[in-house]
């Protein structure tokens, strides 16, 4: 056995390599079948972080397509409704530096808004119903329409199609029942920390406000 190997070094090396290649190939093939991942988990994960307003401000027709685009390497700062929070979460997920919001795609609004149809002006053209990605507008042809406030994401896609401009985006009323404490005003020592890992989100928020 050893003699044969010693006599034909090149042949035996080739055989050994081929053998190894076959073994590993089989292993990899088996692993590919056995541990096959259904769908693209990254796209799903990104999609869950996006705010699901389906507003299209990012330039894609909905949140899922944008998630797909991010997974393929698009910038993560194109989502004004999600704002800095979403960008930070995405940066966390993808393990990249969190950029600030790209102003080209709109500004982060301070308060969430919902669409409101001034019903006395509505002519019942159903154009907003067709535009709403959420099916959150109720109505029929030549009947006035109304917005299901709970389902409205505030994407404002219904505003433009309205022929009589009777749709307003109004801030969501916040009352005593959904009030909650604010973080204490950052005293000066917390304002511009030399970055530590845990302080990152905080410092960024502060500088963002200052700018």
């Amino acid at each position, binding site marked *: 056995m050893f003699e044969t190997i010693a006599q034909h070094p090149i042949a035996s090396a080739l055989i050994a390599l081929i053998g190894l290649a076959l073994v590993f190939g089989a292993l990899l093939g088996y692993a590919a079948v056995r541990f096959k991942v259904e769908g693209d988990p990254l796209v799903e994960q990104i999609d869950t972080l996006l705010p699901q307003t389906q507003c299209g401000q990012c330039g894609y027709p909905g949140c899922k397509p944008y998630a797909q685009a991010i997974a393929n390497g698009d910038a993560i700062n194109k989502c004004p409704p999600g704002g800095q929070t979403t960008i930070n979460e995405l940066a966390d997920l993808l393990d990249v530096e969190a950029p600030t919001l790209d102003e080209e795609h709109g500004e982060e609004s301070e308060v969430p808004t919902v669409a409101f149809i001034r019903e006395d002006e509505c002519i019942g053209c159903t154009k907003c119903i067709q535009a709403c990605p959420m099916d959150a507008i109720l109505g029929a042809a030549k009947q006035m329409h109304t917005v299901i406030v709970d389902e409205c994401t505030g994407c404002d896609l219904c505003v433009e199609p309205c022929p*009589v401009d009777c749709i307003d985006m109004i801030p969501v009323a916040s009352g*005593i029942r959904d009030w*909650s404490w604010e973080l204490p005003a950052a005293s000066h020592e917390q304002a511009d920390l030399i970055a530590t890992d845990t302080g990152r989100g905080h410092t960024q928020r502060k500088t963002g406000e200052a700018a």
Partner: protein
Amino acid sequence: MTQLIKVWDIPGGVHPPENKAQSLIEPLTPLAIAPQLILPLNQHIGAPAKVLVEVGQQVLGGELLAEADGVFSAHVHAPTSGTVAAIVEHVVPHPSGMTDTCIILDTDGQDSWQPLDEAPDYQNLDKAALLARVRAAGIAGLGGAGFPTAVKLNPRANQPIDTLIINGTECEPYITADDILMQNRADEIIAGTQILSKLLGEPGRVVIGIEDNKPDAIATLREAAKDTRIEVVSFPTKYPSGGEKQLIQILTGREVPAGQIPASIGIVCQNVGTTAAVYRAVRFGEPLVKRITTVVGEALDTQRNVEVLLGTPIRFVLEQHGFNEKKASRLVMGGPMMGFSLPDTSVPLVKTTNCILAPTRKELPPPSPAQACIRCGMCAEACPADLLPQQLFWYAQSEDLEKLEAHNLFDCIECGACSFVCPSHIPLVQYYRAAKGEIRQHRIDKEKSDRSRRRFEFRKERIAKEEAEKEAKRLARKKAAEEAKKKLAEQKAATGDAKTAPAPAPADDEKQRAKLERIVAAAEDSLKQAQKPLEDATDEQREKQQARIKQADVKLKAAQDKLAALGAATSAEPAPTDKAAPAKAAADDPVSAAIERAKAKVAMSPEDKLRSSLESLYKRLAKAEDKAREAREQDSDKADALEQGVSKLKEKIASTQKELDELTPSNVAEPTPRDPSTSDTSGGATADAASNAIEKAKARAAAMSTMSAADKLRNQVDSLEARLEKSRARLSKAEAENDENIDAFKAGVEKLEVKLAATREQLAQQNEQA
């Protein structure tokens, strides 16, 4: 009397200066009736009560002003006689300093009451009657949280109660309201305890827990409880041993599992004040309209306990006690550890107000500025829940919500012991409260975005399905014709009275199955969703969640059943005739077939298309007529139906012919709206429109920023004019195209014209003013 009852110790805790003596010097005094009472509709945890009275209505003392809205709510009664002056938004005692709906009652000073429903023989009442009396009195926990008492006294059947704890701890500094109540009305407390005990099915152990810094109260209660099985237990003074969970640990050694209520381990806890109120409600039918409150602080001339009507403005209470505004550093409702500072003195006293604290600057100095955390660990030493406050602070600061939950933020009872000991004066509790609020908001947002995603996806699916169905229908019609032809041939050959193949049925099945599958998927999804946050949810949320889970479960099961039934049906159905099988196979893939047909169709010009369809129609007509004739000859009962089909086909042929005629002269290949080839371009157009819209909106926002009112109006006029023009253009286009929306456009133009006129007028006025 020696005490042989074992008490346990709680971890952590602090010993702030007690400051309880100054308010105990003077006896308990009833306070005068204020000229105006402000009664918030939400003095408890849960839904606000529903108003029953009208403005201007005369009410008597004890009359129901607002009734509980659902189970988690409590009634609001008139504390005295008077007139309802208003039902308005008014500042309420709440840390936010915000307003809420209140009933303003102008008192008449008569204090005339409606007759009370007394029950001298209350001991013979059954549980339901007792509970009804408690509920009717609108009692909410008087200890500070304000949980509707009737809810707590009605534990679920699967949670037998073995211990009733009456909380007379009063561990907060300064407050002596419960102390003085126990000293003065021990009999009422004992009687109330017996009622509670009966309501809860006579639990094995009934115990009143009091801190050992109230020897008088302990002695009085022991005396009153002498001939009963009620234990009066005293234990070492330490803050926060009066917290419900802490008191349970002290008296029983057991811990309430995280996210659950004491009833889940067979314990119900009630405050002594609540207990006395329960007695008065049951015995005398007295609603909860007054309570004992400690009025204390160096900024007052008189410090004492008063019995005061609910709704009395704090200002009135302070006036009665010689409040020196200049000396006061702040005004606190509740104790110094957990109370909240009031925005102004107009807020009313409510069911949960156990103390009004008006300290001087020397007494409670304003907090020093926060220094950096040195991780000294004093907070962890003080925490009664064994949390790591400094870690929580760290994560709250960086808003790391996941880590906060992992460190059990929601087990924090916000007792303030950590902030009390912190040498760096960090407002730790505020960090936790803010973080909790943020996490809750995050959960709500998450839930909403999940729902949005599902809705959006269903919508997309639905639209796709609609398209496919339209296509499939067209196909099915064609296929039906072919099939009929084939069948006819077969029929001729076999001469049997073969039934027409149920072609649409399998298609229906298919559709139904898809729908059911979708429902199942959605139900599974929502079930998963509902189960996820269960772990950390609070009690109330838990209940809701569980209901939702059950609902989702039921839905899921129903859908699965249906699906299974359908599967059984389809599998049971096959092969009464051999013909059904190929038909089903064909129907199995209607979409791809449809696509193929559609492609073929697109390749044709509309004219060709019409022509070909006309041809096929003619063919079908011929076949149908043949068939009808045949049927008539055989005297089949189907003849009528077939003839009807023939007439329908004829109609269709006529209409197609007309269309073709119209098309031919113009010879323009204007696509019919249903033509699939246009859907792409129209999609592109929509996208363009969307981006245009975005741009426009941006420009508008930029322009709007710096403008005077007149300018704004002028702009508005301009934009209205532009819109009007646009609308007119749309209208004329619609008229040209004979659009179905033409009426809508007309109405729109008219409305815009009206609006434009109005805005112009406004502008003119503005100009005049200028």
